[in-house]
């Protein structure tokens, strides 16, 4: 950013404060709605100057992984006969990674999903698959919003508040 004489390259303090407040409110709502749990905060704590994009990197990995797993599950459920063990293995993996990033709603859906795999309920599995798919899409959208807000704060010269 160009520096002009007499001007700092930081946005006015109230703008930064405003952005920070919006950020905190937004993140709080995600916790409140159960989209995210404390594990997400744990991830943010692992970020520092040497690894400034850690949370974004992990989230990105998650979405690549979840897309792949969801496609696998869909394919497995389309086959005849359905290999429920395989579906279960994929759900188990998704449950693990969603748990690791603090995606609580996705994780809980996976738990339900697994019980349908166990009882080999085809319809139950289809419903769960759809729900997991939707939930991952919602999560992606919300996290993109969140990360964008972080960028705005940093761009305005502020620091991203850490929830505790």
């Amino acid at each position, binding site marked *: 950013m160009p520096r002009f004489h007499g001007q700092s390259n930081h946005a006015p303090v109230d703008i930064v404060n405003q952005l920070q407040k919006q950020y905190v409110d937004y993140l709080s709502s995600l916790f409140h709605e159960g989209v995210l749990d404390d594990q997400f905060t744990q*991830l943010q704590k*692992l970020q520092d100057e*040497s690894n400034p994009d850690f949370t974004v990197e992990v989230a990105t*990995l998650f979405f690549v992984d979840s897309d792949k797993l969801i496609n696998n599950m869909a394919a497995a459920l389309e086959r005849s006969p359905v290999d429920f063990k395989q579906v279960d293995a994929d759900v188990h993996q998704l449950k*693990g990674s969603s*748990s690791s990033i603090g995606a609580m709603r996705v994780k809980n859906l996976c738990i339900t999903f697994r019980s349908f795999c166990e009882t080999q309920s085809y319809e139950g599995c289809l419903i769960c698959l759809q729900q997991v798919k939707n939930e991952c899409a919602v999560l992606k959208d919300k996290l993109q919003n969140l990360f964008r807000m972080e960028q705005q704060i940093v761009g305005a010269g502020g620091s991203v508040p850490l929830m505790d």
Partner: protein
Amino acid sequence: MDVGSAGSSSHDDPVLPLLPCRSSRGRRRRTLVRKFLLSDLSHFSPFPQMSSAAESQFHVLAVDDSLIDRKLIERLLKISSYQVTTVDSGSKALEFLGSRVNDDRSSSDSLPSVSPSDHQGVEVNLIITDYCMPGMTGYDLLKKIKESSSLRDIPVVIMSSENVPSRITRCLEEGAEEFILKPVRLADVNKLRPHMMRTKKLKGQEQEQELQEESVTHCEVRSQPPRQHELEIEQSQQDQSQQIQQHQQQKSGNNNKRKALDVEEGLSPDRTRSRYNGVATF
């Protein structure tokens, strides 16, 4: 003492009597000199991996088939100032550990060796492994490690996303130091240090005895190789994991020279040795 932060490759060298200068220019010069010395000495008989417990970092081998969890555990460990190697399977973990087993093989073969404890391989101070993995589970890996005379002293920690009491008991009974529920947190990683300190202490005592037998001039030089290892290992960690991931384990038919001490079934130790020599002696 700075044991090295995540991503950083500059270590404050606490002891290098040859160059007393402590400026950053001096540090750079020392790094160059260290590299030169090491390259020169690699032609000679390998020195034991000598360092006091205070000097070297703890090196943790993390095993998990999930990429996200590997990234997470790696970050957790690096933030706690550990050196980290990650692999995605139990068999690759054994391959990696196998670069240390060779030393025992040579002494058990009764071949003349330069020193009974010359460690060309990488030292691992703790193994942390996921329980649920395809193929070899974390439990299987734990068993193999405890069955190996050269590896059994390495503390093993199991991670699992599932809280199954019988599973936990089984692992602890088999010799695991801790059982950690996922997702793993910083507080969990903090619990690991005592296990590594305990092993380091034992090793430190052994090495101190060897030190007394050697002349002082060798001492200074010898203290360098592990630093260099750590530098290069930290930098080449990603390469290393990729290398490991590219190598497929051969099945048991291959290895009919397996001794009771060996833990890797199906691995040709010579192949392992040549594969990891480059890594170990940068």
